[in-house]
């Protein structure tokens, strides 16, 4: 096991962070605007989000780099700037952390399906390698491959991330099938745990997807399928639209109320995804009596 992961685990359950996109929107990011571009145009606002999570009690914060791979950037105005956006993203989180939290840099999916033939695995591998390298150069402590639906794509990302020598967290979205316990492509938690471990991920997990209640079952199955530490970042349920704005009706306290169950299963890293905020992190911290 990587010394950093070992060191983190030795201190007990680790609190990660919550959603970033909604926090940036609260600071003026327009609907449909590419959040990662703010690392260059509004680094002050991005740093505020990072600081809010650290002040709430995050021991690990991520970076505003989820979509900054060259494939997703495509013909966007920021195309060609992937390395810069990634490097700046880590620098912003690092400066905000100021040694109080570790910075795990976010790598999200490309938004293309390999089996549709829109993009080849070589192109995907190259895009992830470029992103991972830029994140490592920016000074990331670890890399988080997250919100993956396609196991083949996740493996490419994990392998590319592993090339940097940094520890890699790999998590997928289990939100499909009648029991909402498969990825969109039909992958089970067991298959994901096994394949991602083999690809070199140090930590295995699930994020986004259904609300936190469903993560108890998924966490249990991941735990049983691998001896790697488990990382969970659930959504605060599904949003309802109120006056044209998405609203998540799960409260921080309801969310944090599930945390003891997750920890009993042996989950090592807990945080939130879409709909969660710094006050969710505070609620988790209180739940852990810290």
């Amino acid at each position: 096991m990587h010394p950093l992961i070992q060191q983190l685990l030795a201190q007990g359950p680790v609190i990660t962070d919550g959603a970033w996109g909604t926090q940036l929107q609260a600071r003026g990011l327009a609907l449909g605007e590419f959040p990662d571009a703010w690392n260059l145009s509004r680094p002050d606002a991005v740093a505020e989000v990072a600081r809010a999570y650290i002040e709430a009690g995050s021991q690990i914060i991520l970076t505003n780099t989820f979509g900054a791979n060259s494939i997703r950037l495509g013909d966007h105005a920021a195309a060609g700037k992937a390395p810069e956006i990634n490097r700046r993203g880590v620098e912003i989180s690092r400066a905000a952390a100021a040694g109080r939290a570790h910075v795990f840099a976010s790598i999200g999916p490309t938004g293309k399906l390999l089996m549709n033939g829109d993009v080849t695995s070589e192109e995907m591998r190259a895009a992830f390698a470029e992103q991972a390298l830029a994140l490592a150069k920016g000074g990331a402590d670890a890399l988080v491959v997250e919100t993956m639906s396609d196991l083949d794509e996740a493996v490419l990302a994990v392998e590319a991330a592993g090339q940097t020598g940094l520890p890699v967290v790999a998590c997928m979205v289990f939100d499909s099938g009648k029991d909402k316990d498969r990825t969109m492509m039909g992958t089970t938690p067991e298959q994901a745990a096994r394949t991602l471990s083999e690809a070199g991920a140090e930590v295995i997990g699930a994020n986004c997807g259904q609300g936190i209640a469903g993560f108890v079952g998924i966490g249990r199955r991941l735990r049983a399928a691998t001896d790697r530490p488990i990382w969970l970042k659930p959504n605060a349920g599904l949003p309802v639209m109120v006056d044209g704005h998405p609203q998540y009706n799960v409260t921080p306290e309801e969310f944090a109320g599930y945390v003891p169950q997750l920890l009993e299963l042996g989950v090592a890293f807990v945080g939130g995804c879409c709909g969660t905020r710094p006050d969710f992190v505070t609620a988790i911290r209180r739940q852990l009596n810290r």
Partner: protein
Amino acid sequence: MPDLKELYEAVVRGDAKTTQAITQQALAEGVDPLELVNGYMVPAMDEVGRRFECNEYFVPELLISARAMKGALELVRPILTARGDQPLGRVAIGTVRGDLHDIGKNLVASLLEGGGFEVIDLGVNVPPEKFIATITEKQANIVAMSALLTTTMPAMKTTIEGLKQAGVRDKVKVLIGGAPITQQYADEIGADGYSENAVGAVALAKKAMGAG
């Protein structure tokens, strides 16, 4: 005479080569193309949908079967068009303005084609004007909108408002889908239908055309 039961089986297992070969042979031997589509391929896609609903099939299997069906339809369609047979309906599909995600939209488009619809794919980041133009210029009967993000789903509402202002709202059925979309949201913005997955979207489109 080829074994047409095998055509059904080939679509179900997503065997594009066999699907096309049997279709070609059957057409050469004078089998009615509509008989091939309605008697074997559409029931096969229904079976694929059923397997999807019971967790036997997932997105990869859907895509492979839809692709097999599409290959066969490419052989059948020119014959149907030449003799004046109309497709089940014409769908203008796109991911709404501000949203660049197309995995779900592409999947729905493939399955609609496999279900007998003519699909006009407008791509991603589609402004209301483009949907309106497709209705007026290409006589689309259905507008199908996709959004993956909570931040872009409001564009569905503005698109529907755009259709109303352009006076074409009553010419089409509006169907919506995407991860954050719910039936409640569809009702709120006045869409005609919502499906939580691509298989349901085909049933919904058929229903919208009165063929469900």
